């Protein structure tokens, strides 16, 4: 068998693909965080909880109403988005005039409530969700076997992320959104309904987290606590990339996933911590983050 640095090529690429899959989740979550931060000036600590909701809804839809994974791909993010609208209207809109730190504290509390309730209902262990039948098995690429489902996760993520980028950078709605991020009162003066736009932004942001949850359901275990550990890594990703650029957060997320995968091959003890170490390094060299714009 062919080897690189004493590691079989198939194993190396296997871990890289796994890393890329994780990178997809990082990318989608940090993209949502960046969009929300741009418009609401709030760091959504509940983002991990919304990701978990996406996965649990997927599981619930299948086991209760026998709704297939394909439909969940559409319905679960929608449900998460609607839940997000409620959260924004009931809680967050009261905080726009105070220090942004309160937004972080409130969403932290919400995350504890949501996760605590689901943990109470379903326990801390995982809920099983099988890979949809169409995507079972693997493709033989010659040098490695690529599990079909992982290819799908990467494909869906790339389409969704670049779709979001296109909408923000190239459409009328995106132009309003960018303008609203820069100067809300001015945009409102032009007759655009800024509060509705803020609500919509939050819904889309958490919807992306929900979508990541749907994609995660068949590969990782569906569990009420799946979001809370992930969100801290995603925060580090956001610090590394800086939240100024949409494309930047997508690329940073994917790249860090790959690095994490490589670490698993060559020095697995550090795979949990490598992202945090890179964050420390970036803070030393480029405090504003790789794609950051602020001073």
């Amino acid at each position: 068998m062919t080897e690189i640095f004493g590691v079989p090529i198939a194993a190396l690429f296997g871990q890289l693909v796994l890393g890329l899959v994780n990178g997809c989740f990082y990318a989608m979550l940090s993209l949502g965080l960046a969009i929300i931060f741009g418009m609401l000036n709030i760091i959504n600590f509940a983002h991990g909880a919304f990701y978990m909701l996406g996965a649990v809804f997927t599981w619930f839809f299948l086991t209760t109403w026998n709704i297939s994974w394909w439909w969940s791909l559409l319905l679960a993010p929608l449900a998460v988005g609607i839940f997000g609208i409620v959260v924004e209207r009931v809680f967050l809109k009261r905080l726009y005039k105070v220090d942004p730190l309160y937004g972080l504290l409130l969403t932290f509390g919400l995350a504890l409530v949501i996760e605590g309730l689901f943990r109470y209902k379903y326990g801390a262990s995982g809920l099983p969700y099988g890979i949809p039948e169409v995507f079972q098995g693997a493709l033989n690429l010659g040098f490695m076997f690529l599990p079909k489902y992982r290819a799908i996760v990467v494909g869906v993520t790339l389409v969704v992320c670049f779709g979001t980028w296109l909408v923000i950078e190239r459409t009328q709605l995106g132009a309003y959104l960018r303008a609203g991020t820069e100067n809300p009162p001015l945009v409102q003066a032009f007759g655009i309904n800024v509060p509705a736009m803020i609500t919509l932004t939050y819904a889309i942001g958490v919807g992306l987290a929900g979508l990541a949850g749907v994609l995660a359901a068949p590969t990782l275990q569906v569990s009420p606590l799946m979001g809370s550990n992930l969100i801290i890594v995603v925060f580090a990703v956001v610090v590394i990339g800086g939240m100024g650029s949409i494309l930047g957060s997508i690329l940073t997320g994917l790249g860090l996933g790959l690095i994490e995968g490589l670490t698993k091959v060559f020095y697995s003890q550090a795979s949990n911590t490598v992202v945090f170490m890179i964050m420390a390094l970036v803070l030393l060299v480029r405090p504003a983050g790789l794609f950051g714009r602020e001073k």
Partner: protein
Amino acid sequence: MTSAKTRYLGYGVLLVLGLLAPYVIYPVFLMNALCFALFACAFNLLLGYTGLLSFGHAAFFGTAAYITGYTAKVMGLSTGLAILAGTAAALLLGIIFGGLSIRRQGIYFAMITLALAQLVFFVYLQASFTGGEDGLQAIPRGKLLWVINLENDRTLYYVVFAIFLFGFLLIHRTIHSPFGQVMKAIRENEPRAISLGYDVNKYKMLAFVLSAALAGLAGATNAIVFTFVTLTNVDWHTSGDVVLMTLLGGMGSIFGPVVGAFSIVTLESKLSDKVGSLVTVIIGAIFVICVLLFRRGIVGEIQGLYRRVVGSRP
């Protein structure tokens, strides 16, 4: 009576209450509450007086606890020295964390401290000296200064009470010093503090390291009280708990964190056997209610009420 006299009378009553408390209330519970009160006061030095929200303070609390436990149990250091070693470790970690995190402001600062604390958590999960998932068990309480036997709960209580008072008075002194005034200036208006010629980062760093060291002192003492240290002490839940204690009690007031810590520790000990895992839900709900309804916290609201009542008099 003048307000200064009332205040000193209040302090006196609290001191007497603190001295008598172990005869009425279970000492271990009190010691735990005092440790968290000191922890929250140290945290408040940063959030309430400098305006920096650290979401990783459990790293200092836990590091000090592990080092104290390790030096006392494995290296056979006497209890006092072990506590000092733990505090010094937290101080060093504070220098590293501070050096990295004060490069960014506001919300980024919170995310960076949280991520660094998670890094520390994973290191302790894998390191051998922490005992991993099992934690560090059977730490000897030992003797203080070769004579005071700390195995006795009530004796230990007075030592813990003295440590708490030391930390509390140090914080009190810091806040009311010229240094404390600069900290408050940074909280209120950082660009203005810079334009007045203050080296803002130096002040932030000093506040951060002091806060980390005192959080460490609380963690070190906690390790001696319970004679064990587990990963819970460095978990992000613990960082969240100390944020809540400060928020609930009232950030930026000297007694707020003490009130908050006693409330949350009481709540957790009373509820955990009744509602089990729902404790997290209740903690989260208190967070939400605090942020939405009373951002000044219990002490802040009481002070506001008092001022309205007294102020309305001619």
